[in-house]
């Protein structure tokens, strides 16, 4: 069963590789992009890693990632020009379909949960199956053909861009940190100040650290790997806290930090520019009471639910 699941997952990763390949081809064809070759290489490398990575030595994959890092550092990766959608088509289609346009999304979520819950294949296969089923429904509903799917795949992947690959890179960073013993050092440093073993103190420490680190970095995903390894595991999970609760509420504590920081520019400063607001911190000021209250709620929930 495990090997069957792994084979199915490998197939899904190869499909993802195919969408990256499409993004690479279309990036190369985008003559308006001054860095089109760098961008095409960026996507091609990910296409290779997802398509055939399992047959490559790990060190080769690692080296390819360093190339990705170099391309990004030298600013050779840009989204480029993406053709905007035809408003007439979408308006006419919205008129024809009405609320049915939401059907594929509902099928996606429901199928993913059903496969995870009621088959032995598990959650990851569920997501892949749900993505394919919902795409077929969407094609049937909108009468979209292969060409449209190709076009929309490259458009979506390219516009998500390097931000889309960042979560996986952050998870990888977590692995490197663990292998280097960063978590152990952090845990040791903190336990010299705070005693390990007190459940409430551990929960407060972890949730507040998630929020504070996110305020500094502007990104809860980045804080998650570091803070969970350094504080969440030794101070909460190792003390008997349920890992699933700690993860879910720990990340949300980070989101409370996101709501409080100008570092999260997309969320807190972009609207200031979009709506020509006078107060650059206006959005954060409106968010602060809720963010702080929610952080306290996360702490209470984690303390109650994890133990």
């Amino acid at each position, binding site marked *: 069963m495990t090997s069957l699941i792994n084979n199915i997952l490998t197939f899904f990763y190869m499909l993802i590789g195919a969408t990256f390949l499409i993004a690479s081809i279309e990036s190369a064809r985008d003559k308006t992009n001054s860095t089109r070759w760098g961008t095409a290489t960026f996507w091609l490398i990910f296409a290779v890693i997802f398509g055939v990575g399992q047959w490559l030595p790990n060190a080769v994959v690692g080296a390819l990632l360093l190339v990705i890092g170099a391309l990004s550092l030298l600013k050779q990766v840009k989204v480029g020009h993406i053709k905007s959608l035809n408003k007439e088509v979408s308006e006419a289609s919205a008129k024809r379909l009405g609320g049915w346009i939401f059907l594929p999304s509902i099928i996606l979520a429901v199928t993913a949960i059903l496969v995870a819950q009621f088959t032995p294949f598990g959650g990851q296969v569920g*997501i892949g199956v749900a993505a394919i089923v919902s795409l077929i429904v969407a094609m049937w509903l909108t009468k979209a053909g292969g060409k449209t799917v190709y076009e929309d795949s490259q458009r979506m992947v390219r516009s998500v861009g390097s931000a889309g690959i960042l979560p996986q890179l952050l998870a990888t960073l977590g692995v490197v940190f663990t292998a280097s013993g960063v978590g152990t050092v952090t845990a040791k440093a903190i336990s010299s100040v705070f005693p390990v073993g007190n459940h409430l103190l551990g929960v407060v420490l972890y949730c507040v650290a998630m929020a504070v680190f996110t305020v500094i970095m502007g990104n809860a995903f980045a804080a998650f790997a570091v803070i969970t390894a350094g504080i969440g595991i030794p101070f909460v999970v190792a003390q008997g806290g349920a890992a*699933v609760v700690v993860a879910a509420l720990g990340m949300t504590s980070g989101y409370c930090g996101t709501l409080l920081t100008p570092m999260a520019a997309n969320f807190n400063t972009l609207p200031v520019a979009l709506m020509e607001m006078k107060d650059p911190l206006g959005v954060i000021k409106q968010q602060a009471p809720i963010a702080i209250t929610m952080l306290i709620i996360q702490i209470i929930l984690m303390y109650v639910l994890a133990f």
Partner: protein
Amino acid sequence: MEYIKLIGVLVIILGFAFKLDTVAVVIISALVTALASGIDFTKFLEILGQGFMDNRMVSLFFLTLPMIGVIERHGLKESAVSLIQKLQNLTPGRIFDIYLLIREAASLFGISLQGQVQFIRPLINPMAQAAASVETKLTNKQVDRIKARSAATENFGNFFSQNLFVASAGVLLMASTMKSLGYKVSPNGIALYSIPVAVLTIVLVFWYNHMFDRQLLKEGKNND
């Protein structure tokens, strides 16, 4: 000097704080951490490569993009807009309430719209301003506050409900990171334990919006 291992954390903090390219910052942080901890370069490449391969599940959400792209082309946004435009004769706070509900429902089904660009500026903000100016003329300060609250509502809905969807990047990142740290956690479980947060957000923000309306009303009376 064991604390030298924390140099990668410093790189991340400074790199993000100075808004350097995030992908590059993450990879540099990994490199310096490994080297500072006495891991040799070849070994580092192996750990990096294997870590990336082991965490491929985090990127599974890419598989959902073609479908989202197709429905977006065929009027996803337009249908959502006409749904929201049906909200007539409401106070600003009520408009925010209903937008929050729609936003959380969308998250539940994995629809992540660029809310600030697609809905807040062109739709929710003007609707809330129009609703607020029925009773009284708005001051510049009030206009600014309505704008800020419109944007805040989108962020509340986005952040406190995105973990409800099992194939969201955040949920997959958590499951994968916990696996790397030696704890098996299912995406379904994470989504399940995210429900209380989503529900409490609705309760709390509804009350917050109610206070928003009351304050506008009070200020309106003082203006007259």
